[in-house]
């Protein structure tokens, strides 16, 4: 099937899409999709059909090309390499399609996919709901939100937060240098869960049925647990380990100078995750339902609105107290 997909992909002649175009291609199962967009947005949702709907919006001077690439397709925006010269690439893909998205000033929003997902951007936020088998998300200067994913997960940012919830995985690696990390999901027997920050708090929900060896490491940070634990070992420095049930999974939580917090997770997500979930749902709803309009007309207004939205999202994501209220006294978006 993959060979057939590759053959079909190779047989597709490259073509360009004009601004405001709306094109649907029938695609064979197994076809991968690469998207490269230097600046702007890549917005993707999924459907059960084996067809790929492409809507684009970009400047007249630029172009968006669709061309074969390996055993898949490449959709690439060719534009002047400037932040303000962005393109919007709005896709509806088959659920099974593997996605590989790259950009620089690029926000990436993906919902409903059941394929592999790889995202790499520099300035953009990465919001993904779904994903199977292998999910790799990387940004440099912004946040990552991943929910409802199943598979091996790696998420990495330098100067941003990472929130992961409703995750089903036996291999999770999340790291940031300057940001918070929150994880709520399965802790599977013999699984490996590694959350690392240099300067940020880490919170992890431990399910009731989890069996794990939990190692906590910090230099000048703190540790809080919402349930009683018995240390099985304390090593040099502020590094210690304890077991939940039979020590099957390996959980490593490391923050050089942030607070590490663990809590029992249940059917209801904790307050912080709930708020992030609500906010991200609003973002999904907005970006995956809005019409793809003319860039020239909407760019400035949209950019301002989006910037304010993400600013709020980041702000409220970072400053919750135990009750889930904004600590800075500012109003939550829901309250405004």
């Amino acid at each position: 099937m993959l060979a057939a997909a590759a053959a079909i992909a190779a047989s597709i002649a490259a073509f360009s899409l004009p601004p405001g175009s709306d094109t649907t291609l029938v695609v064979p199962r197994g076809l991968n999709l690469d998207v490269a967009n230097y600046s702007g947005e890549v917005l993707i949702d999924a459907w059960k059909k084996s067809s790929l709907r492409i809507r684009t919006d970009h400047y007249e001077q630029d172009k968006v090309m669709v061309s074969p690439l390996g055993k898949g397709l490449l959709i690439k925006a060719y534009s002047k390499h400037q932040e303000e010269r962005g393109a919007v690439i709005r896709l509806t893909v088959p659920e099974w399609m593997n996605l590989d998205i790259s950009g620089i000033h690029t926000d990436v929003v993906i919902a409903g996919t059941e394929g592999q997902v790889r995202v790499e951007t520099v300035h953009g936020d990465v919001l993904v709901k779904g994903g199977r088998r292998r999910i790799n998300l990387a940004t440099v200067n912004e946040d990552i939100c991943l929910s409802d994913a199943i598979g091996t997960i790696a998420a990495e940012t330098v100067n941003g937060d990472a929130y992961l919830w409703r995750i089903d995985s036996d291999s999770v690696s999340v790291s940031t240098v300057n940001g918070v990390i929150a994880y709520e999901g399965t802790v599977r027997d013999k699984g490996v869960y590694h959350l690392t920050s240099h300067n940020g708090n880490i919170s992890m929900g431990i399910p009731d049925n989890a069996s794990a060896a939990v190692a906590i490491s910090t230099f000048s940070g703190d540790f809080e647990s919402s349930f009683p634990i018995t240390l099985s070992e304390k090593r040099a420095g502020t590094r210690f380990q304890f077991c939940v049930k039979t020590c099957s999974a390996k959980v490593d939580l490391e923050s050089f100078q942030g607070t590490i917090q663990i809590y029992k997770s249940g059917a209801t997500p904790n307050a912080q995750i709930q708020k992030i979930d609500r906010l991200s749902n609003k973002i999904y709803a907005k970006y995956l339902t809005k019409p793809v309009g003319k860039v020239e007309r909407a760019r400035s207004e949209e950019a301002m609105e989006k910037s304010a939205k993400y600013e709020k999202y980041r702000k409220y994501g970072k400053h919750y107290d135990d009750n889930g209220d904004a600590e800075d006294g500012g109003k939550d978006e829901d309250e405004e």
Partner: protein
Amino acid sequence: MSDRFTESLSDYLDGGLPASARAEFESHLRGCTECSETLEGLRNVVARARMLPERSATPEIDLWPGIEARILETGRPIPGVQVRRGPSWASRRVSFSVPQLAAACLALAIVSGSAVWYARRSGLEQTVQSGRLIIGSTNAGNAPSFADATPSAEGGLRGEASKAGLDELRRILADGRDKLDPATVRTLEESLTIIEIAIGQARRALEADPANPYVRAHLNKTMQRKVDLLRRATMLASAP
């Protein structure tokens, strides 16, 4: 080689594994050539590291230019470095083996070490918190402190501690300046600064608590982040 055991390599080497995990790991080692070889490679790197002077004012060796040059040569693999090919999934990725990465980290450690030495000599200290940077005056032995200040190139937040790294980055980006806009270059520089500050803090923590295996491992990981960022910058600057 299983991810679970790969994760334990550093702890095993540090003598930081609990007795039961250590026994399990050693049992795995007896049947896994790849893990054994990786462990041996790491032991060699550590042995080499111990032979290095504690800190030098100027870097005696810099592996990065060689690594960078070979990365830029499309299609030519670096000896001992795996270049994943095939499906689009990994087509732009270059992955280093653990010993290679450790060797690269060592070289960068020397560069960073000299920068931190220079920074401390000039009495500058940089700290970082929640997307914010500040330069303050603190004692080297103290735990890092924080304050709020938005990072910006205009804010005078560039300390000597990050100069060496920034020079590396600028050199990498110089050839690709037509491919990356100034905002991206600035973001990469700021991110590198944040990593360098983290490296500086971890290094000072290790000085204060040399027997702390976590701090040593954390320092190595943070240096690895720097390698990753420089590698990524190289990719971006050389992308078609």
